Structure formats: C-alpha cells, structure tokens
C-alpha cells in the first residue's frame, strides 16, 4: 500500500482519530513486551493490564476510523495492513523498551496526556468519540496512579534508583513536545469539526500532574531538551517502529486471513 493512496483515503477527522488510536495500539504493544521482564511478577501483570486497556481503546478508535474514512477497513486491517509511513503515533510510544525507570517516565507522561485528552474528548461533537473517551478516562486514571507510585518509589528510594529515575525523566523529555503539538494538518480540521481538541490545550493540565509527582519523588523536572521528536503524526517515524511492526504484523501478513 503506498503512502499516497492511504493518506488520500483519510478525511481529516479520521486522520486525527487515527493518531490517537495508533498511540494506544503502539504503546499497548510496547507494554506487552514487558511480560516476563518486569522486576516482579505483580508488575508483569500490571503492565499487561495497562497494555490490555490501551489495546481496547485502540480497537474502539480504529474501528471508528474505519467507519469514518469510507474505506470500510476493520480494526485488524488498520493494525496489520498498514506500512510504517501510514502510522500516525507519536515517537514517545514507539521507542524501544528501556529500563523500568524509563518505562515509568514514559507512562507518567503518556497517562497524564491521555487523562487530559479523554477528559476533553468527553465533550466531543462525535457521539462515538464521547463514548470511547468517557470509558477510557476511567481506565487511564489507574495507569497514571500506577506510574506515579513507581516514580515516587524509585525517586524517593535509594541513591541508585533516584539517579536512574532522574535520568529516565531526561530520557523522556525530548518526546514530550510532540504530544502537545497543534501543527499536524488533521488537528485543525478535527477541532473545526468539533470532534477533536487542540493538543496544546492539554499541556498545562498534563504538566501539572507530572510536576506534582516529580516533586513528591524528590526529583527535579529535567532541563529543556536539546532536540525534540517530531513528525509521528505525519508518518515520519524513528527506527524502532519498523522493527515493532515487523513483529506485530508478521503473522497476518505472512498468512493472510489466518484465524485461531
């Protein structure tokens, strides 16, 4: 499928929602990779549970995208039959699994962003988006709470855990701006249509939530990053996404129509 063909198939509102669905799908996959690698068994289960919530949100969003874009594609078509350039997720969620502190830094920012996002989308002009957001908002509150507890535990823990948690916040910092970027073309259209929210309007709420946790954890907000990720919403990705998709899409692409 060429980039031009698929891009042309998305009306702007569908393209906006595709970004939200892809964020949930790709982060769900990354969290699923923690199974058997988390520091304790309970954490394997917790990360898998968060992953499952995000997968459910992705399914609902992608199904809705398929109904809006006029192509009749199913959630599975969208998840498994698109190439890297057709994915619209931000770079934060596609980065490789790092150490556990990095995962908690990523989850802290992403859940703070999603909490603000879904709260705002509860007033969307699109009935299905409202329904998805109202349900998802209840779930991501637990994700944020989980990440917050770990950031505090590690930050206010030993010297080693404190330093690694602090380093993890610095690791995540370059990816934060992209979450709140209004410049992707689909954003303005989705806002004009009354369906979406401008990501920049979510920034203050999300940042306050993160800052409160960081302060409680005896950590400091990292200095302004020297570079910033961009382009995910336009399909320009970093190297790890291609590898992730190769694994995620291998079976349905190798054995089309496979069922189990």
């Amino acid at each position, binding site marked *: 499928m060429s980039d031009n063909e698929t891009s042309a198939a998305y009306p702007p509102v569908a393209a906006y929602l595709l970004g939200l669905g892809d964020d949930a799908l790709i982060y769900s996959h990354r969290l699923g990779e923690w199974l058997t690698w988390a520091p304790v068994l309970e954490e394997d289960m917790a990360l898998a*549970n968060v992953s499952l919530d995000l997968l459910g949100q992705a399914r*609902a969003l992608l199904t809705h995208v398929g109904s809006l874009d006029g192509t009749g594609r199913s959630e599975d078509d969208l998840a498994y039959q698109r190439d890297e350039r057709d994915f619209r997720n931000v770079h934060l969620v596609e980065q490789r699994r790092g150490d556990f502190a990095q995962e908690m830094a990523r989850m802290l920012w992403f859940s703070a962003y999603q909490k603000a996002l879904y709260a705002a989308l509860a007033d969307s002009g699109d009935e299905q988006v409202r329904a998805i957001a109202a349900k998802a908002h209840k*779930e991501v509150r637990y994700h944020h709470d989980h990440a917050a507890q770990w950031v505090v535990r590690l930050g*206010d823990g030993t010297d080693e855990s404190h330093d690694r948690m602090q380093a993890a916040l610095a690791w995540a910092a370059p990816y934060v701006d992209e979450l709140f970027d209004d410049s992707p073309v689909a954003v303005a259209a989705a806002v004009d249509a009354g369906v979406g929210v401008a990501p920049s309007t979510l920034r203050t709420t999300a940042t306050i939530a993160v800052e409160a946790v960081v302060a*409680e954890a005896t950590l400091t907000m990292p200095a302004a990053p020297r570079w910033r990720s961009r382009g995910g919403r336009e399909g320009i990705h970093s190297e790890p996404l291609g590898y992730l998709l190769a694994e995620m899409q291998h079976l349905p692409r190798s054995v089309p129509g496979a069922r189990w």
Partner: protein
Amino acid sequence: MVGVLVGNVVEAVRGIPDPEIPVITIEGLGILRSCVLDEAAGVVRVVITPTYSGCPAMRAIEDEIGRVCRAHGLRAQVSTVLSPAWTTDWITPEAREALRRFGIAPPGPAGAAEGPVSVTIGRFGSGRHTVACPRCGSEATSVISTFGSTACKALRRCDSCGDPFDEFKAL
C-alpha cells in the same frame, strides 16, 4: 413446546455467569444492559457493555448468549454499547455478597476514586477506601498491586490473617 422454551429465555440470559467470575451473573455485574424477546421474529435482542475497553471476556459472553438463545429455539442479536460507561456501582447487592463469599472484596463507591487520595506512598496511592478482608473481615489490609489477575481487580493482602486476596476495583 416452543412456547415453553421461549418463556424462559430472558431469565436464562440474565442468569448467564460471568466467564471470569462464575459466581456472579452478567446481570448482577451490570454488563447486561437489556434483553428483549421479539417472539414474532424469533429473536432475542440483547445489549451488553464491557467492564474495561479491553475486556477479553466479551466474545465469550456473546457466544454464551447465542448458545442460550439457540437452546430456546431462538436467535440472539447481540450489540455492544460503550455509553454510558460501565461502573462498578451497577454491581447489585446480591452480586457484591456473592463476590465477598467467593473471596473477592467488593468495590467501594466509584465516585470516591475521584476524591482525595489517602496515602500509600507519598500522596499517590490507591488506598482510597477501607477494604475488608473477605476471609476474616479485618479492615487492616494493604494494596500489593492495583492491577491484579484481571483488569477489573486489584491485589491486596490482609495485615491480620496474612492472606492475599483480590479486590474488585471501583471504576
């Protein structure tokens, strides 16, 4: 004969056990939103809602509704709705008691999850309400993990009798 079968179908659908917590029914859990028999069309129209967005039991529940309706000589038409979003406040008093007897602490009020947070670690934590041990009744219990064996449960430990147990999370 068909009439006799049809007469019981709505009760039978209501009584379908939750696949993950078989001591409570889908009605008691609040995920069965409506069940209406259209006798003329030979169809039972059933509306269900998931507990969590990613609840993996939905397909099993749908299949079971279909099986129960077929056993009554009817066809099931199952639709899934997301709105209004499911809340643990819809779990009936009978189902809460069944959960407790099964060893799962029933959920506290969902609204409380938005309120001030009591302390587990620092200001962040999930000890938002008192959770009694379903085995010994002690209210001295603590959270091991807010994500338990399924999406809808947290894992806790009783500080009195020492037993670990599941808590149905308020949502």
